[in-house]
């Protein structure tokens, strides 16, 4: 006989931030039907309101003002509502807010203003939030699809344009392929452990480590296949092929959002699966986790390829695409660090700090690209930055700040992020990878500073369109980048509270 659970069994209250966003999105979708085409700013405002409510709830929870529900599990461990979840929520929601702000005028002047844009953007955000809160591999998969499907559609949002359609097609086909790998990995992990719950996997890993080699290899291959699937989402190197094409073809406002959101979701899920689920999965006693070598190798490849190929790029969107590949490498370094005993929490903190810094910086950088981009999606070459310092001094200053932050110069957010990532990696004895990270950061200075050079030292008309929502978004991103760089304590103190529920 079926036993009916009570509401407190389910602990639905713990899922309040994400559930409020889902409900808000449903309302937004219905409300949008009654918003006339020429007044779509109303939809954008409603989307901001929905995101704002959810952000407020997440901040309350993160700041420990109130915890929703009791305990940090809901749906019997399917949903994990710990401080890491709150941090992922905040990053995802801030990115989404900036994403809505940069989109509004851009959609209007490119003739693709539709309410569905905001609805899909909010759905993706909900997907990211679910991924950060996943306590079960099935939730990881469903949330990944919820994250991906709206992004496929958004990439092709600029419908009549071939480049946009092509990018959506490429993203979709490769993304579906990557999802297949993820499911295969989940199946093998289930085969090895007999469960899909991350906490149960965490328990089962002890037996597997003590047991025979077969289950160990099964688990190892399963984890590897999941790394493939999630590595695709975060654009890690052997699976990065789609990134430049998709970023170049998709509407820039979408890229600004998804370059951060997809990464946040992907890394959150990677941490949940690897750092929380199987940090103690070792092949030899006392060694770091079995997956650590693979992850740091991927991280090294990602940093090298992303930074080296970015040097020869002449299109801003392509350049930033390779830059975003490179940054995935730095975050992967922190994920790899979680494989050493006792470092899961520290690396989760590093990932959160890095992603927060990256969210402000990267959305800001793409916002500047939006400002200089023409209505027909042209003028995104590096040379379009020429003379920007003279015609738009504030815009150029903000762009220079973002470029410095992406390089990782001190007093910017990027430096703080890299500092914590490298610190975690050094604690995990990944010296070679850290050296590669430091050297590639130096290399990256070349192509980031080249943009600054174009803005300040070359002549050009430096045309840019900066309506006020875009200006506000750039300002927020710039203030955030500077603020986190100059006063990192606020963020790092908050991050110090972050623990993965059963990590360590």
């Amino acid at each position, binding site marked *: 006989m*079926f036993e009916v*659970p009570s509401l407190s*069994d*389910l602990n639905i209250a713990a899922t309040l931030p994400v559930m409020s966003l*889902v409900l808000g999105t*449903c309302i937004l*979708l219905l409300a949008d039907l009654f918003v006339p*085409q020429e007044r779509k700013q109303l939809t954008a405002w409603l989307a901001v309101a929905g995101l704002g409510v959810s952000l407020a709830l997440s901040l309350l929870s993160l700041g420990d003002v109130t915890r929703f529900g009791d305990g940090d599990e*809901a*749906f*019997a*461990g*399917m*949903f994990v509502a710990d401080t890491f979840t709150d941090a992922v929520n905040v990053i995802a929601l801030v990115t989404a807010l900036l994403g809505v702000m940069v989109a509004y005028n851009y959609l209007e002047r490119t*003739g*693709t*203003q*539709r309410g*569905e844009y905001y*609805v*899909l953007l909010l*759905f993706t955000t*909900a997907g990211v939030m*679910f991924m950060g809160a996943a306590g*079960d591999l*099935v*939730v990881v*998969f*469903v*949330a990944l*699809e*919820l994250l991906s*499907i*709206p992004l*496929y*559609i958004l990439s*092709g*949002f600029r*419908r*009549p*344009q*071939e480049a946009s*359609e092509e990018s959506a097609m490429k993203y979709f086909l490769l993304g579906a392929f990557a999802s297949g790998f993820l499911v295969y990995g989940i199946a093998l992990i289930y*085969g090895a452990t007999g469960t899909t719950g991350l906490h149960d996997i965490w328990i089962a890993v002890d037996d597997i480590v003590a047991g*025979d*080699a*077969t*289950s160990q*290899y*099964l688990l190892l*291959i399963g984890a590897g296949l999941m790394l493939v699937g999630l590595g695709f989402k975060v654009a890690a190197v052997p699976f990065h092929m789609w990134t430049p094409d998709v970023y170049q073809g998709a509407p820039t406002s979408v890229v600004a959002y998804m370059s951060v959101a997809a990464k946040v979701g992907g890394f959150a899920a990677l941490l949940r699966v690897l750092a929380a689920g199987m940090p103690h999965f070792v092949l030899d006693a006392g060694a770091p986790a079995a997956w650590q070598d693979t992850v740091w190798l991927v991280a090294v490849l990602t940093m090298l390829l992303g930074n080296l190929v970015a040097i020869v790029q002449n299109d801003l969107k392509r350049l930033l695409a390779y830059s975003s590949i490179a940054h995935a490498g730095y975050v992967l370094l922190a994920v790899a660090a979680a494989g050493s005993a006792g470092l899961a929490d520290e690396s989760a903190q590093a990932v959160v700090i890095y992603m927060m810094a990256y969210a402000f910086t990267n959305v800001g950088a793409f916002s500047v690209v939006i400002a200089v981009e023409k209505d*027909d999606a042209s003028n995104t070459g590096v040379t379009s930055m020429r003379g920007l310092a003279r015609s738009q001094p504030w815009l150029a200053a903000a762009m220079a700040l973002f470029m410095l932050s992406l390089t990782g110069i001190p007093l910017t957010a990027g430096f703080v992020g890299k500092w914590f990532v490298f610190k975690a990696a050094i604690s995990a004895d990944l010296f070679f990878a850290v050296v590669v990270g430091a050297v590639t950061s130096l290399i990256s200075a070349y192509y980031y500073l080249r943009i600054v050079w174009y803005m300040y030292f070359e002549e050009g008309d430096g045309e840019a369109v900066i309506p006020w929502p875009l200006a506000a978004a750039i300002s927020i991103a710039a203030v955030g980048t500077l603020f986190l760089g100059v006063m990192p304590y606020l963020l790092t103190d908050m991050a110090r509270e972050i623990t993965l529920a059963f990590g360590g």
Partner: protein
Amino acid sequence: MDITIQHGVFVIFTLVTLGSALLVVTVRNLFHAALYLMLCLFGVAGLFALLTAPLLAGFQVVIYIGAIAILIIFAIMLTPQVTRVIKTTNAQWPVAIVVAVLFFVMILSVVSPLMDELGVDDWNADFTQEDADRVPDSTLTDFGESLVSRDRFVLPFEIASIMLMAALIGAVLVVSPDAILRRDESQPPPSDTSVSADTGASGD
């Protein structure tokens, strides 16, 4: 070793699945490839049935053969090249074969010792009868319960509905090029509305 009827059925379904899967990737006519895909999916449904998962077999038939394969055929029929026999121009197939074989060997080398571990010492053992006892009497009711049980899949189930809704919006958006074109006044409306699938792309 006695050969039971299960063995015969298993061999038939395996051959159907593998053979048609091979044909899907080698056959030159895209339309025929889609038809072979249906056959391949049917073979998989048969294997599910042999594994005492009749519910999955049913879902496989209803969703994959009944809907997704049809959708693929529709998609092929939308393309202008539908009647042309397409040459498979993938120059990388030797690499693909090497990778596929390597992957197969890797999986096999992991799974085959597992057979010993689980007590399947005879590869030709009657694999259905013993395992059948371990399967719930009705996978249908078990599945129904697991969809709503709090410690099973109620959360993914609800997220799936959100995902389906996102897909629904996407379907409406992607497949109505006219609606988007109408709003975008800079683009002339497609002259031939019956084949409006690709006119959006030719706008620039």
